[in-house]
């Protein structure tokens, strides 16, 4: 299944623009794939008994998986020509095997700094249980669409 690629340029983006929502299910398989893909074998990501010992209800995604999903929300919306300059994220609650992830956001600021064309976006990652990971990113984009 191929996806259409969107290319947004800095001068086409405005404060208040909506960053398109995407969703992704998180079966156990994805949490295990996460541990392998990121070489992060902390047992909370693959051992349900250990996760419960930690006070968690189930094995859960690690930070790197959530980073990848946040970045995907941004680049699915604006395009593969985005350079992510900054990403700040807070893990308020865990994302468990069995959850469905939802990512969406809004544009907060468009500005120029050090000859870079920058866009600040706020991205919220939620599950059925509510907001899990709020994030703020600064993106660098080409200024205008090539003619």
């Amino acid at each position: 299944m191929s996806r259409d690629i969107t290319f947004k340029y800095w001068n086409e983006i405005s404060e208040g623009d909506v960053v398109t929502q995407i969703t992704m299910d998180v079966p156990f398989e994805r949490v295990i794939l996460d541990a392998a893909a990121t070489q992060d074998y902390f047992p909370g990501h693959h051992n349900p008994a250990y996760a419960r010992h930690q006070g968690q209800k189930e094995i859960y995604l690690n930070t790197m998986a959530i980073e990848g999903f946040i970045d995907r929300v941004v680049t699915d919306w604006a395009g593969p020509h985005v350079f992510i300059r900054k990403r700040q994220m807070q893990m308020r609650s865990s994302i468990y095997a069995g959850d469905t992830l939802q990512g969406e956001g809004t544009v907060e600021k468009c500005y120029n700094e050090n000859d870079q064309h920058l866009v600040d976006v706020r991205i919220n990652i939620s599950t059925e249980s509510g907001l899990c990971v709020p994030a703020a990113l600064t993106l660098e984009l080409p200024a205008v669409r090539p003619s």
Partner: protein
Amino acid sequence: MSEIFNEPFPLAYGTYEDAVKLLNKPGKNVVAEFSVNWEMIKVYCSMVEDGNASYWDEDYANKQWGGIVAPPGLLLTWAMALQWHPEKEREHYFIAMKIPLPGDTLINVATDTEFHRHLYLGDRISVVDELIDVSEEKTTRLGVGHFLTTKAKFFNQREQLIAEQTNSLFRYYVPEGES
């Protein structure tokens, strides 16, 4: 806790005072086990279903960036320790795991990363990190412990700064009877 866990993820144990002694002392420079490679990039992208052409399409990536680049979310992965090595003792490379404290487990709380340049196929990173803050004992809904903040700098093999990351985690234990 009724179940005995092997410690696949050994932590350093000690007191808050022991941890404070390690503040603002950079750890050793760690050269990553993994060089940046397309296979691990593809596995990671398949995990988050990211079809970004910068990671999959050589023609596009060559034109846009000068080559296939690594997803920013893989930054930490390149420097993760192997589960076994013929010559090295198993240890964590990141200093957050080596801070002596009472908690027997941990959870990540916040991660801020600033990226300066891309990583390309074949690049090999090195990392230096240090503990910049440790809280006094706190009680949260998960348990009792200390918040640790570390700062890491990531360089490529040409000593160019790739990224700087500030990370906070909660190192805690679940009080008896609540697990």
